[in-house]
């Protein structure tokens, strides 16, 4: 027992069952993890308790408490329900049912309604309460959100998730204009039900920016968490009932986060019995999606057929091909098949994103001695209270890391530093203790050296690094004026009595003091704000668990090798947990499985990329391939987990495995390759069908298997000095996709509206006009200028999600480049 307690573990009894839990955990979460049911409407795991519904009332040590916001104590005895509590809960449900429309038949929640469930669960069969209703009109909040306030029970789950998880804080409660409650009710009805009703009667959900449209990322997480049918997607509204849809557990295909999703399918129409995806849902208590994951699901290859002639042409093309160019929006199995083609036929493999990532990871491994970083994003979300993000446009590159960054501020009372040359107003707004530092372009080395300088255990650093760091810092003496309060004793003579008294007074006094100030040239190199030291001091107070996330800018960087070594050094010598975010969906998997080559000339097979012969899952190539929602396989995500994805839709064409079969080294099915994934690289030899894809009730993830880190011989241990490669020019562009766009697949989805355009901050777009002609190394085209009102600064964003523009090729080994504007 003592041992358990020393680990911060406590034990308590809930309904007679002894539960062991972490200290400081809420009773509700402990009950859920142990399979004990406590009704709750407004509480969301991973978010702060809202206390709107009050239905999670329990009795803990003979005191009535709300289980969602009461922390468990050792030896606590919790009773989930007794007659009194049940009466209270029943009254709460009766109040929720007051004036709630009864057209359940046409509600999109269609039977999966929590209001309905709890009404039945608590046996509400009469309605003792009444109040005059007010008319509430439904409205569209954005291009995807539809809100019907008449159905809303104001549990505020949407508000909570938007603030605590997404970070948009786009929703809040506003006035309903309803009548006040009868004062007599306060004495006659149960206390909590009255309090809940009193609040409910006063509020509805409104966009937080005082308009009738939300200014948000359109992620749709609010739709997912809504317990009733008040918030639905405009596209899904009235198209299907929940029970008709078959849920297919899969993995999102768009970014390296690899979130678990369910594709919900049913036949397209009465005439067309082919399956269609109607919507994507998620386990919103355990994983949050972004707009691309939720709305970008219809990217399947719609027109694929078994065209034998095209297959024969493909075989001929592959026989004479010099290289295959592909990207990382493929499964591990496909990557392995491409590698087989390389092994057997000697074709080179070209992959821009995975190559840069692989090179970075190779240097990182050579410096660290292990090929994978140690940080785990899921545990960071639970434990970390100080996070630094370097080289990643969090809002665009990986929304889930942005949620992590936000969640640390909101739930762990954390602080965060966001280093990026392009300013981001959303990140700035995530919390009081968040600083966006617009570092100079390509100054990430200085940032990482600064981390070493401030946080590293100097004994663990190589001598060269210590010397280099001390050569960069100067210790100067500075006089500062401090104001202190000084006690002054005065003698006061009381006028009436004539007695004299000694009175102590506090008098401010200015003192000049000499202090030692450590100034580092590093700060100047990455353009730190002047009060950086003060900010840091404030942020670091009482912080214990440090996280560092690094992103794509570091892999596409002139000094990427040095950066990799620095990251490895930070991991070994500082308390930071490091997470490395792969640039595309399966870049990690591809970089482990494939031997990648440099860009070359010759006859090129393009797989979802430009080439002389194109294999394409987009339906525009010479031979059709299945898209990621049409095939089974595994993906390796940023959590370093190999997760399975399933086919939601039928596919009638040929696959990569069929091509391999033509050459004589294919397998019977694509998923037979799963157990052949290279064990030497950390994969396991496991059958596809044995891979789970779900979350447990306590929030733990049960999906696929984790990669095993491989030991590597340390060959590169010390980093070089900083080289600043300035990028200058008339207009500097940053290769970055708009929110909700990740690749050509999201671009084909009908609910993703973000166009291929030049994105600029409000001020910059005024300067640029509505349209610009740009010249990319001789390739000229005109682009619309779109305002991204969350950007700041002069740098513009040029997306890379359309392969035909060859943006990758133009940017090369850097995400920043100056572009020339033609005359419009």
């Amino acid at each position: 027992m003592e041992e358990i307690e020393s680990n911060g573990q406590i034990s308590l009894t809930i309904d007679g069952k002894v539960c062991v839990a972490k200290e400081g955990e809420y009773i509700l979460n402990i009950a859920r993890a142990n399979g004990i049911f406590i009704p709750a409407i407004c509480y969301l795991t991973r978010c702060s308790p809202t206390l709107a519904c009050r239905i999670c009332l329990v009795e803990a040590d003979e005191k009535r408490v709300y289980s969602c916001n009461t922390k468990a104590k050792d030896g606590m005895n919790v009773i989930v329900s007794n007659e009194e509590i049940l009466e209270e809960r029943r009254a709460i449900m009766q109040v929720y049912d007051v004036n709630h429309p009864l057209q359940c038949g046409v509600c999109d929640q269609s039977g999966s309604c929590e209001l309905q469930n709890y009404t039945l669960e608590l046996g509400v069969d009469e309605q003792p309460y009444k109040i005059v209703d007010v008319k509430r009109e439904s409205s569209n909040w954005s291009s995807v959100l539809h809100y019907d306030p008449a159905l809303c029970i104001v549990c505020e789950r949407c508000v909570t998730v938007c603030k605590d998880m997404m970070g948009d804080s786009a929703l809040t409660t506003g006035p309903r204009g309803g009548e006040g409650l009868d004062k007599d009710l306060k004495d006659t009805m149960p206390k909590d039900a009255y309090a809940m009703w009193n609040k409910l009667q006063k509020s509805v959900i409104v966009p937080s920016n005082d308009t009738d449209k939300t200014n948000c990322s359109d992620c749709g997480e609010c739709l997912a968490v809504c317990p009733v049918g008040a918030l639905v997607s405009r596209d899904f509204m009235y198209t299907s009932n929940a029970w008709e849809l078959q849920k297919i557990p899969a993995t999102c295909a768009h970014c390296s986060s690899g979130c678990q999703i369910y594709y919900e399918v049913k036949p397209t129409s009465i005439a067309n019995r082919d399956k269609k995806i109607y919507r994507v849902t998620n386990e919103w208590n355990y994983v949050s999606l972004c707009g691309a994951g939720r709305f970008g699901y219809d990217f399947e290859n719609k027109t694929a057929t078994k065209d034998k002639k095209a297959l024969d042409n493909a075989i001929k093309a592959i026989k004479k091909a010099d290289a295959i160019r592909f990207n990382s929006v493929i499964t591990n199995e496909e990557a392995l098949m491409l590698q087989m083609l390389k092994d057997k036929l000697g074709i080179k493999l070209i992959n821009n994103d995975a190559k840069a990532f692989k090179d970075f990871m190779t240097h990182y491994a050579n410096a660290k001695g292990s090929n994978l970083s140690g940080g785990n994003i899921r545990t960071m979300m639970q434990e970390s209270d100080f996070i630094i993000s370097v080289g990643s446009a969090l809002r665009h590159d990986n929304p889930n890391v942005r949620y992590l960054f936000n969640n640390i501020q909101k739930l762990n009372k954390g602080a965060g530093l966001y280093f990026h040359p392009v300013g981001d107003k959303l990140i700035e707004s995530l919390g009081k203790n968040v600083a966006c530092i617009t570092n100079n372009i390509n100054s990430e080395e200085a940032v990482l050296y600064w981390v070493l300088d401030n946080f590293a255990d100097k004994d663990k650093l190589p001598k060269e690094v210590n010397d280099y760091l001390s050569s960069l810092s100067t210790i100067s003496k500075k006089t500062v004026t401090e104001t202190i309060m000084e006690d002054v004793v005065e003698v006061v003579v009381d006028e009436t009595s004539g007695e004299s008294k000694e009175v102590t007074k506090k008098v401010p006094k200015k003192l000049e003091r000499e202090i030692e100030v450590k100034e580092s040239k590093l700060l100047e190199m990455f353009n730190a704000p002047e009060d950086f030291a003060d900010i840091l001091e404030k942020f670091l107070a009482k912080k214990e668990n440090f996280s560092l996330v690094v992103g794509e800018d570091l892999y596409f960087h002139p000094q990427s090798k040095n950066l990799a070594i620095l990251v490895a050094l930070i991991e070994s010598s500082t308390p930071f947990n490091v997470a490395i975010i792969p640039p595309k969906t399966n870049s990690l998997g591809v970089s482990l499985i494939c031997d990648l080559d440099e860009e070359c000339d010759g006859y090129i097979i393009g797989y979802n990329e430009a080439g002389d012969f194109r294999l394409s899952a987009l339906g525009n190539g010479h031979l059709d391939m299945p898209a990621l929602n049409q095939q089974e396989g595994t993906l390796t995500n940023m959590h370093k987990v190999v997760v399975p994805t399933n086919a939601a839709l039928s596919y009638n064409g040929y696959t990569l495995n069929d091509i391999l079969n033509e050459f004589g080294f294919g397998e019977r099915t694509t998923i037979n390759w799963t157990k052949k994934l290279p064990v030497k690289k950390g994969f396991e030899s496991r059958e596809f069908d044995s891979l789970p894809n779900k979350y447990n009730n306590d929030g733990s993830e049960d999906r696929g298997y984790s990669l095993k880190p491989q030991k590597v011989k340390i060959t590169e241990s010390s980093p070089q000095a900083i080289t600043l490669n300035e990028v200058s020019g008339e207009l500097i562009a940053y290769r970055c996709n708009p929110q909700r766009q990740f690749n050509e697949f999201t671009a084909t989805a009908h609910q993703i509206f973000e166009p291929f355009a030049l994105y600029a901050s409000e001020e910059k777009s005024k300067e640029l006009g509505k349209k610009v002609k740009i010249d990319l190394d001789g390739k000229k085209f005109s682009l619309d200028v779109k305002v991204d009102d969350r950007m700041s600064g002069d740098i513009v964003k040029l997306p890379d999600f359309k392969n035909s523009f060859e943006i990758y090729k133009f940017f090369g080994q850097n995400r920043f480049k100056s572009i020339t504007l033609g005359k419009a």
Partner: protein
Amino acid sequence: MAHIEEHKETQSIQKEKQNYVMLDFGKTPEYGLPAFIQVVRRSLSIELLKGLGVTFREMINALFRGKMHTTKYPFEKLPIAPRYRAIHEMLRLLESGHYRCIGCGLCEKICISNCIAMETKYDENQRKEVSEYTINFGRCIFCGYCAEVCPELAIVHGGRYETASEQRAGFSLFEDMLTPIDKLKEQKEFAGFGSISSNADENIKKTPLAY
């Protein structure tokens, strides 16, 4: 005691009502010759013509007086009991003429032979509109669950019991089942399976929402 007496009374009434008459057929002939004589006598007497006379009278009645007892199926059909469960009908609202179906999909959900399919969409009046509705009568077992579950009494069972068609799986579309708009006045409120009981008003529990 009272109920026993009552029972006796009904028994005596039944006895009075009995008016069976034993017919006098005479003696049955026991051997050849008397039997032959009986046949000859019966054949040559007027009894045969009496029988033919009845047939002739009925023929005249049927042909000229319009007193036919035969139902000329398929041109004529016998009336069907209201609880009979034949081909479905889609009813309209009497006030507006709009179809009653709200597209909730409960019939689709409850259908045990999985033969109902529907598609709905969001119309310009922000209401749910039924865009397609079919019942596969090749699979329908006429259990009546759809009519019972319908919250609007929109889908009911009618009296059309012929389900033979050239194809085994004949489809019926929404328009085929819907009451034609010009026959709205003839639309009868459904009294069969799934309709509201005659004492429904008594069973409703009033809530205090009548402010």
